[in-house]
C-alpha cells in the first residue's frame, strides 16, 4: 500500500500526540483520534489519509505511557511511524497494538513523498525520491508480537507470555 509522508521534527511528545486536555475522550477513541498530533501539526488530523506515514526525527513519542498515543495514530489509518529513534514506552506500546514503529534514517524523506513499506523485507521505498531505505529487524520477541498483530493475539496464541 502506498501512502504519503507527513514530516515531524525531533522529540515529539505524547502530550502533542494526544494532549492531556482531551483525557475525557479516552473512552471514545474515534473522537480522540480527531485530535491526533494536532499540537504538532494542526493540519494532520483533518487531512491524513488511510495508508499515510508519520515520518519523524529522533525520540518520537517521548513522555507519557498512554497507549492511546499509538492507538489514535493507528486509528487515523497510518501504515507505520518511521523515526530515527523512539522513546521506549511509545515503541513498546506501538508494537503491542500492532502499529509498525520503524527505526530508520528519515533524513532523505520529504514531506508528501509517496512511500511503500515492505515490512518483512526491511525496506521502505520512497517512490517520489526514488530511494530505498533499509532497516534492521527488531528484537525477536518484538518481531513475533508484531507478526501476530499485537501482544493480545500473541499471548492468546501461546496461551501464556513467552519469549520468542
Amino acid at each position, binding site marked *: 500500500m502506498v501512502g504519503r509522508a507527513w514530516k515531524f521534527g525531533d*522529540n515529539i*511528545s505524547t502530550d502533542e500526540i494526544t494532549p*492531556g*486536555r482531551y483525557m475525557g475522550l479516552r473512552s471514545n477513541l474515534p473522537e480522540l483520534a480527531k485530535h491526533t498530533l494536532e499540537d504538532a501539526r494542526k493540519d494532520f488530523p483533518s487531512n491524513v489519509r488511510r495508508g499515510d506515514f508519520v515520518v519523524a526525527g529522533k525520540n518520537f513519542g517521548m513522555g507519557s505511557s498512554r*497507549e492511546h498515543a499509538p492507538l489514535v495514530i493507528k486509528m487515523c489509518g497510518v501504515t507505520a511511524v518511521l523515526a530515527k529513534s523512539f522513546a521506549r514506552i511509545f515503541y513498546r506500546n506501538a508494537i503491542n497494538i500492532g502499529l509498525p514503529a520503524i527505526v530508520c534514517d528519515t533524513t532523505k524523506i520529504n514531506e508528501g513523498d509517496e512511500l511503500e513499506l515492505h515490512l518483512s523485507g526491511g525496506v521502505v521505498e520512497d517512490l517520489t525520491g526514488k530511494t530505498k531505505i533499509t532497516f534492521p529487524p527488531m528484537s525477536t520477541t518484538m518481531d513475533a508480537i508484531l507478526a501476530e498483530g499485537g*501482544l493480545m493475539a500473541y499471548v492468546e496464541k501461546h496461551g*501464556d507470555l513467552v519469549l520468542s
Partner: protein
Amino acid sequence: MTGKTLAEKLIGSHTAKGSASAGDVVIVRVDYTFSHDAAGPLLIQQINQLKIPSALDKNRTVFFIDHAVPSPTKELSNDQTIVRNYALGNDLILSDAGNGICHQVLAEDYLSPGDLMVGTDSHSCTAGGLCAFGTGMGATDIAIAMKLRKTWLRVPESVKMNIVGRLGKGVSAKDLILKTLSMLGTDGATYKSLEFDGTAINELDVYGRLTLTNMAVEAGAKTGLVKSDARTRRYLKEVGREQQWKEIHADDDASYESEIEVNASGLEPQIAFPDSPANVKPVSEAKNVRVNEVFIGTCTNTRIEDMRIVAQILKGKQKAKGLKLIVTPPSKKVYLKCMEEGILGILLQAGAMFTPPGCGVCYGAVGGIPADGEVIFSTSNRNFPGRTGNPKAQTYLGSPATASATAITGYITDPREFI
C-alpha cells in the same frame, strides 16, 4: 565474573534463573502492578478480552483514581466509575479519589527495597528512590502483567550518575536532576537505567531520592535507581514499615556503560525553560521572566520535607499581586501532616489555594489551566508544548524553594534570597 548493577540485581532476583545481565531478555515475576483512571478503562477492557486464565493478585494489584480529581466532566466520572467498580468488584486495592498520587502512595504504603513493580504510568521509575525497580508501560502490557503476574523486560545497561560534593542551602534534589537532564538531554538515557550514587546521594533522604528517580524517564531511561541504605531504613520506619527494609547496593565491580559526575557543591538552583525538561539554565539566567501562575505539587516534589521548605519561605509573606498560587499536596497523608504542622495556615495566609491530592494540574486535565500567553512556574517534571492544558501558554520547571520565592516576587527568583 563481574559484579552486578542495581538494575541487574533487582531484575535478576525476579527471574526463574535468579540472575540476569545487561542485554538479557527475560520474563520476570512482578511484585506489584498498578493502573489509574487515565489508563484504567483501556486496561480493564484488555483484561476482560484476554482469553487466558486469570491470576490477579488481590494484595498486590492497585488501582488509583488520581489523574482528574474531583472529576470535572461526566465522561471522566464514567471512566472513574469503571475503574472503581472493577477494583471493588474483584477485591483489588483501590486508592480512591483524594487519597493521593499513585507514585507517592506506592512509596508511602506499598513498595520496599528489592521489589519489582510495573504500572501504566511513565513515572513508575519513581520507585527507584526506594531501591525498587519500577518502570512504566502501556495498558496492554500492564493488563497482561496483572493477569499473569509477570512481564518481559530487556535488562538495561546502566549509567552511573556519580553525584559528588554537598548541596548548598536552598538547592535541592530537583536542581540536581534538572542539571543531570541538561547534560543527558531528553533521550540521553533511552532504554537505560540511571543509577545515582556518590557522596551527595549518601546525604540525600528518600524524599529527595524519589525526586531524582521520578525524572529519570525525562532522559528516556527505563528506570532510575538508588541503593537501599540507612536513610531508606529511616524512611520505612517513618511510614511504619521498617521490617520491610533490607540493604541493597551495586557490587563494587559492577559494569557500567558510562559514568557521569555531577558536582552538587556550588550548584545554583536550576530552571527548565520551555518546552523541554532538558532545556535547563541556572536561575541567574532566568531572572527577568515574569510568572502568572505558580504550581507547587506533583509526584516529582511536595513530599512533607518539600512542604516545610515552601512554608519556611512563604511564612509571613504574600504572593505577588495578580499571581495565582496553586498548591497540591501529593497524598492525604502529606496533607494531614501539613495540617498538623501548621503549613496549611501559612500557605493560605500567603494567598495559596489548594487542590486535592492528584495529578490534574500538572498535565492540563483539571484545574489551573493557564490563559493564552500566560507563564506557569511548576514543580512538576514536564513542560512539553501544551502540557498544562493550553498550547498558547509556557511552562518553566524548578524546585519547590524556587517556586516559593517566585510566588512572592512574581518573577523567577533565586530562593537563596529568602533562606
